[in-house]
């Protein structure tokens, strides 16, 4: 013992502690484990590594990966991570803390969650936010469950075909478990088909309607009248939105949404091959008690000082068990600190500028790519911000397009089907990066 840096027991410690326990060996403490269940041999694992060996191991693995100039999105965007965030996030008072059930010694965590909730409400325009969900997809599934819970007896939920595929699939999983009938509103020219929406809603029994902005093709749809129609049918209007564009786009509250949900990775979180990101979930005050997960509230302490506490806990699994609004316990925790710091550093003006730069980069790229004649916008008449769908002209294909770019160090987008690529840009894409993308495409032989 004591050769392991994380296990401090010396032989003398073990002997003294066993004495207190009235045992002669540690094995005695396992006397109740039936012999038939005991492992006959050690785990088959490699010999333990020391720190330099571990570093070499992961350095070698990292070399098997190929970081690319990122023109892909589909829910995950490569925005800059300010160095101040990385520095503060590593503070172990934050990183190694448990869930703030003891408010007296958790004010650091509780305060940043309160700030995060405030900022997400500012972005969405809605009244309340929880302390995070796992990702944008599960946040949307939970929004669907909220709608059904609020509607009590109605079981149908409508989801637009223009919601990102992975989000729709996760909603479908959660619907199947919960006995919810999830129906897809068809798409028309890249947008939610308004006639179908009206008809399906008119058929009755609808608890909620889920749409996306920007949608899965990057299009910013016009949802005028949607909320009013939903509300007249007593259904909730749910909007799935990436967090960063909320800094400039019409807010879910302005569209009349009852719930806003989605992925907040676009607030400067590292790509990390897809996780951790951050699911956010906001709603109107009327739905506050249907909101799943943890929520932080402000109050005062016995000396009149401002204090923050976890509140509305009676809805949660550790109290309500199977009657809880959700099973969620651990969530994305410290990623809310990341979001709060990002929005704090950026401010409204910085966030606007990030979106302007991203939009300009995307529109510039779209213009020059379509000018090559090798691709055209899938929906040329539809407004978009920093992501657009591109039809690749035959005989080229999405695979060839992306492969050629990858060979030049560029992630050219996300393949939608054999002839369609979803392309995104951010402030991380310099004009030179765009030139390189275009030059690669120009060199593509039909």
């Amino acid at each position, binding site marked *: 013992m004591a050769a392991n840096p994380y296990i401090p027991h010396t032989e003398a410690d073990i002997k003294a502690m066993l004495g207190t326990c009235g045992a002669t060996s540690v094995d005695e403490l396992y006397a109740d484990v039936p012999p038939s269940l005991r492992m006959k041999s050690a785990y088959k694992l490699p010999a333990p590594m020391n720190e330099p060996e571990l570093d070499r191991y992961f350095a070698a693995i990292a070399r098997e990966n190929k970081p690319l100039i990122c023109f892909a999105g589909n829910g995950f965007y490569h925005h800059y991570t300010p160095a101040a965030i990385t520095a503060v996030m590593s503070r172990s008072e934050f990183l190694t803390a448990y869930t703030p059930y003891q408010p007296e010694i958790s004010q650091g965590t509780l305060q940043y969650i309160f700030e995060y909730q405030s900022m997400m409400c500012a972005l969405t325009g809605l009244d309340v936010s929880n302390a995070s969900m796992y990702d944008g997809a599960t946040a949307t599934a939970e929004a669907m469950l909220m709608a059904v819970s609020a509607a009590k007896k109605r079981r149908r939920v409508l989801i637009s075909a223009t919601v990102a595929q992975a989000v729709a699939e996760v909603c479908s999983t959660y619907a199947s478990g919960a006995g919810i009938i999830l129906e897809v509103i068809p798409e028309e020219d890249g947008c939610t088909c308004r006639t179908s929406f009206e008809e399906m809603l008119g058929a009755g029994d609808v608890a909620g309607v889920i749409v996306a902005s920007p949608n899965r093709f990057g299009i910013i749809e016009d949802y005028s009248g949607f909320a009013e129609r939903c509300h007249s049918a007593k259904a909730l209007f749910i909007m799935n939105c990436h967090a960063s564009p909320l800094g400039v786009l019409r807010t879910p509250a302005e569209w009349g949404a009852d719930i806003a949900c989605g992925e907040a990775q676009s607030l400067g979180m590292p790509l990390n091959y897809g996780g951790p990101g951050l699911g956010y979930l906001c709603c109107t005050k009327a739905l506050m008690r249907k909101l799943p997960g943890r929520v932080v509230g402000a109050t005062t302490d016995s000396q009149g000082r401002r204090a923050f506490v976890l*509140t509305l806990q*009676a809805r949660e699994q550790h109290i309500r068990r199977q009657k809880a609004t959700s099973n969620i316990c651990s969530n994305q925790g410290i990623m809310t600190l990341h979001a709060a710091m990002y929005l704090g550093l950026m401010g409204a003006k910085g966030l606007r500028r990030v979106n302007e730069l991203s939009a300009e980069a995307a529109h510039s790229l779209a213009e020059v790519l379509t000018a090559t004649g090798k691709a055209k916008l899938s929906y040329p008449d539809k407004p978009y911000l920093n992501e657009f769908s591109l039809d690749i002209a035959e005989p080229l294909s999405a695979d060839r397009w992306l492969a050629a770019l990858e060979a030049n160090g560029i992630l050219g987008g996300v393949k939608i089907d054999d002839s369609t690529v979803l392309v995104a840009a951010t402030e991380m894409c310099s004009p030179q990066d765009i030139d390189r993308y275009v030059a690669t495409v120009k060199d593509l032989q039909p």
Partner: protein
Amino acid sequence: MSKIYYLPSHEYVKVDGDIALVGISEYAASQLGAVTYVDVPEEGDELAAGDEFGAIESRKAASDLFSPVSGEVIEVNEELADNPRLINNAPLDAWIIKVKMSDPAELDGLMDESAYAEFCKKQH
């Protein structure tokens, strides 16, 4: 003069003709602690005896509410939305729902005041 009956889950029903007021007992209110929220049904909902009709929350507990009688919810106590502590102050006055009973004979299966008092004594 209304008569009062109780369920083992501590809801009371105060009866006047075929109208029943349903709330939670003094014993339940004291066990729950400061009430922070009451989830109520919609007027017009039809309940069967034993149906869950809502929930009551304190800071660290939540309990489902069950209807002692069958019938239609004809009114919910709106005051509780703004001031749920009325239930702590005077649980027998702070009724939660008003039900038009469809089968008053159901009351025969409930505990009366003295039976309920005995019942509470046995709850440590």
